[in-house]
Each structure stands twice: as structure tokens, then as C-alpha cells.
């Protein structure tokens, strides 16, 4: 399902920050991605949703080449990262990545986490790096925790430091891989509000998430993945509010807790679509307090 099969690859348009063409990825015999085409534009916030095992995270990890695609081409700012001759390290500095498990460097302070790549990769002076690091820690509301070590902080704080670390590289776009899935419910809000601010600032963002309320509120486009393909995409009001595909409906039925489907208009179809008793949220899925706890 190519977007526009006969189009120029890459488009050459500076606005098309992420371009993915016919992306396939298998782990051994397991095909995780089976033909993804995607263009993310500058300033766009794209939320990727879908059941576990649908390939959402793999798609994100392929984009900055943490996973090597089996087939297909990926362009970042019209430079092909999948090209064997590509300067992958340099392209990665243009993409901030935030992981589900934070992956902060435990032997470095919060500030050093933000500055290590600045001084080492960007060869910035220590003083200048410090300034940038502090600025970004302030941005995520942790300006006073620069000297703390990751293990001295809560999960929510750690994830915000991880966001600050990624922002310190002054990236063109940000990739979020289930940034709140490892957090206690009461800590999710802080992280999401930092992400909301980022989106408001015009950052290009691709967010793999289970936070439907966040996706509905912040996303410009929601992509539903299932079985290694994009099943449905569009504005959140359409994809979450009025899904066309049966697989989207099934997924949303599983994720959204019925007791909270009473208010917004754009959800009526989901509500009316249901018959019989609601399905319990499947195991491992966030409970409604997570989904709507904004």
C-alpha cells in the first residue's frame, strides 16, 4: 500500500522530515513489519497506536536504525539512513529518542546525561554544554535536579531527564517509544505535559503510545498498526473517534474503558458499535486511570 507509488523518492521536500518506503523487518522467521510507507512532516505530531506485537516500536527503532530494516528505504531530512554509506551517527544526532525504560546513564548525573553527547559528539565546550543541559532540564521542570543521579529520582523524573537529554542535542525531530508505559500512573501526567509543551513548540514528534487521551488531544495524525502494516491513519477524531477499519474498532474496544466513553461526541460510534458486555482491558494494557489520567 504505497502512499503515492510513482512519486519521487525521496521527495526532496525539506518539510518531509521522515520518509519511509516499503519498510520490511523480520526477526528470523517472524515478520514484524510487512511494508510500511510513511511520511512525517515538519512540526507534525504522529501517534502510533496498536496492539502489542503490531510492530509500532520496531517501526520507530528502524527509523533511527537501532534495528536494521530487512528491506525498504528510510530518509531523514531527505538523507537516506538506510544507505550503507550513510553517516548514521550524524543522522541520529538529528533525532532525539526517548525509550520506554528511560535508559539514562546511571553512572552520570542528570546534567551529565544531557551533556555527555554534547561534549563528546558535538565537541562542545564543557561550559557551553552545561548551559544547554541546564536549559533543557529547566524545560522539563528539573532545573534543580542537575546533580542528582538517575537512581535517586522517580521514574517520571528520570523520563523527563531522558527527554531533556534528547533535546540537548537540538534535534530536528523526536521519537518516543512508549515513554509512559513503565511509569506509575500518578507520574504519567508530568511526562505527558512535557511532551504536550514540546508539541506546542512545533517539534516534529513520532510517539508510540497507549495514551489514547494524549493521542486524541495532541496528535495531528494517529496511525493504527496491526500485524506489521498501517491499518488506518488520519486525524485523531477520525481514527479514534470514528474508526473505519474493523481492526481499529477491535483495538479501541479493548483499550478504551466503557465507563469513560460517555462524553465526547466523536466517540459515539465506538460506543454504539459495541454490543454485549465490554471486554476487559487485555493484560498488560494500561487501565483507564492511565489512559485518561491527564
Amino acid at each position: 500500500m504505497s502512499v503515492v507509488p510513482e512519486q519521487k523518492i525521496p521527495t526532496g521536500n525539506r518539510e518531509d522530515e521522515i520518509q519511509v518506503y516499503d519498510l520490511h523487518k523480520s526477526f528470523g522467521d517472524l515478520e514484524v513489519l510487512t511494508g510500511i510507507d510513511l511520511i512525517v512532516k515538519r512540526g507534525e505530531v504522529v501517534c502510533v497506536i496498536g496492539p502489542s506485537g503490531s510492530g509500532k516500536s520496531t517501526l520507530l527503532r528502524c527509523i533511527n536504525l537501532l534495528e536494521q530494516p530487512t528491506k525498504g528505504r528510510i530518509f531523514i531530512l531527505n538523507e537516506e539512513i538506510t544507505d550503507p554509506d550513510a553517516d548514521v551517527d550524524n543522522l541520529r544526532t538529528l533525532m532525539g529518542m526517548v525509550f520506554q525504560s528511560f535508559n539514562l546513564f546511571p553512572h552520570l548525573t542528570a546534567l551529565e546525561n544531557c551533556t555527555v553527547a554534547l561534549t563528546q559528539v558535538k565537541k562542545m565546550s564543557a561550559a557551553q554544554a552545561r548551559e544547554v543541559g541546564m536549559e533543557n532540564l529547566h524545560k522539563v521542570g528539573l532545573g534543580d535536579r542537575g546533580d542528582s543521579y538517575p537512581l535517586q529520582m522517580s521514574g517520571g523524573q528520570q523520563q523527563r531527564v531522558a527527554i531533556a537529554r534528547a533535546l540537548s542535542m537540538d534535534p530536528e525531530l523526536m521519537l518516543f517509544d512508549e515513554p509512559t508505559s513503565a511509569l506509575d500512573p500518578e507520574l504519567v501526567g508530568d511526562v505527558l505535559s512535557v511532551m504536550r509543551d514540546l508539541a506546542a513548540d512545533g517539534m516534529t514528534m513520532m510517539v508510540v503510545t497507549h495514551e489514547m487521551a494524549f493521542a486524541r488531544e495532541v496528535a495531528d495524525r494517529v496511525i493504527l498498526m496491526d500485524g506489521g502494516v498501517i491499518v488506518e491513519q488520519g486525524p485523531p477524531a477520525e481514527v479514534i473517534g470514528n474508526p473505519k477499519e474493523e481492526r481499529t474498532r477491535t483495538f479501541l474496544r479493548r483499550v478504551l474503558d466503557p465507563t469513560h466513553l460517555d462524553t465526547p461526541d466523536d466517540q459515539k460510534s465506538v460506543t454504539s458499535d459495541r454490543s454485549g458486555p465490554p471486554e476487559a482491558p487485555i493484560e498488560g494494557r494500561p487501565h483507564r486511570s492511565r489512559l485518561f489520567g491527564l
Partner: protein
Amino acid sequence: MTATTVETPRKKKLSPRKRAQRVRIVQYGALGVLLLLAVLFIDGRQVQQVFFRPDMIAKTLSSNLPLAFFNTVAYTAGAFVVGLVGGTVLALMKLSRVGPYRWLATIYTEFFRGVPALIVLLAFGLLPLALPGLKIPLDPYGTVWTALGLVSAAYMSETIRAGIQAVPKGQIEAARSLGMPAGMATRRIVLPQAFRIVLPPLTNELVLLTKDSSLVYVLGLTVTGYDLTKYGKDLTNTHANITPLVIAGLSYLVITLPLTFLVRKMEARQARSK
């Protein structure tokens, strides 16, 4: 369950608590008996004459014990540094994608772990004989550092490899996602964490190495090169009394006891931070 009876056992059984108490009494009793036997049958003065003769203690302490002590520390420290560097290189080789590196590192490790350190040391002592042009610098330190260092590198490489593998994969991914090349990610992110993990076992290795440094006696050292063991052995041979060797042995504890204490501290700290 309610029917569990309080039936009167035919043979009266002790409650578990009572039994534990009895066992404890027997244990203390056995200890007391051993002590009593020791006091009755061991002639303290005779023991002192053989192992702790006062004049020999004085002689041992007053001759050149500090130099011997220094030499032991110097031999150990140098060998440890060589071992640490070599062990790290070997560990990285073992984790290399290049097959021959892995094989070489494995062959090296298996060889030096399987061969007595004493023989390695002897062989190194004779190396200048085999290769006439060769002059090992800082003799005898250079010889000892290389020989013991090469052996301990084999042991340390396994420890360090395990430490590197214990660093979560996400750490490398985070480093790479910030644009760090693989080598930089290893140096800046993985190795510092790996060394923190393996600090206790490496310190244990240092303790073992301290004791292994006593093997240098096979090298035909000059007096200024004597380590603790050789020093004690020399005095013991001269005076036909083993007291100096006992003192030398106890001197090792000055080095090893703080180290093992340190290891215990570090292990406790690591256990807490998990």
C-alpha cells in the same frame, strides 16, 4: 485441618524449639572440649619458640621488612595494572564480531588459566636467555609485572566480559541514539558501568594476585628485589627458625584484610542499589 490432634505421642517428642536449643548446647560443648584439649596438650612456650621467637621477631622487623613489603606491593600493583589492561582488551576481543579475535582471546585465556603461574614466571625469567637481544626493562619488576600480569589478565578477562554483558543493551542504544559511534559508546557508557559492576570481583583478584606475588622467589632475585615471602624465607634459612616466615605471612594480612573488607563493603552497596 481442625482435626489435627493433640494426641499424646507414644514416645515423647521434643518441640522444634527445644530441639534447636539442645543442638546448640552440644555445639558449644564440642567447642569447649576442643579448647580444653588445646590447653591441656599444647605447650605454649614450645609453640612460641618455633613460630614466634621474640628475638627473631625483632630481627625480622628491624632488618629490611619495609623494603620487602614495598616490593610485594609493587609487584602486585604493577601486575594488576597489566592484568587489568590486558583483561579489558581480551574481554573486548571475546565480545568482538571478528571470529579470529574471539578465538585468540579464548585460546589465550584457556592457556594461561590452565598453566601454573609459577611456571609462567620461571619461563619469563629465562626469556632473555632464549631471546638474546631481549632486555626486559625495570628488572626484576618488568619481568614480574609481565608474567603475573599476563596470567591475571586471563582471569580478569572473564570477569570483565561478564561485567560488560551485564550492562543493559538499552544503554548502548541510548548512547548510539545520541549519535555516539560504537567505540565511544563502549568507552564512555558501557565500560564505566561494567567496571562498577566488576569492582568487587576485581578486588578479589587483587587479593589473589598479592598472594601470587610470593611466587617471585623462583626468579633469583637480588636482596633489594626480595618480596615478603623471599625475605622471610631467607631469614628463616639463615637462622633455622621459621618465625621470620610467619611474620612475612602475617604481613600479607596488612594488605589483604583491608581489601577483603573493601570488597564486602562494595558488595553490600551494590546489593542496596539494586
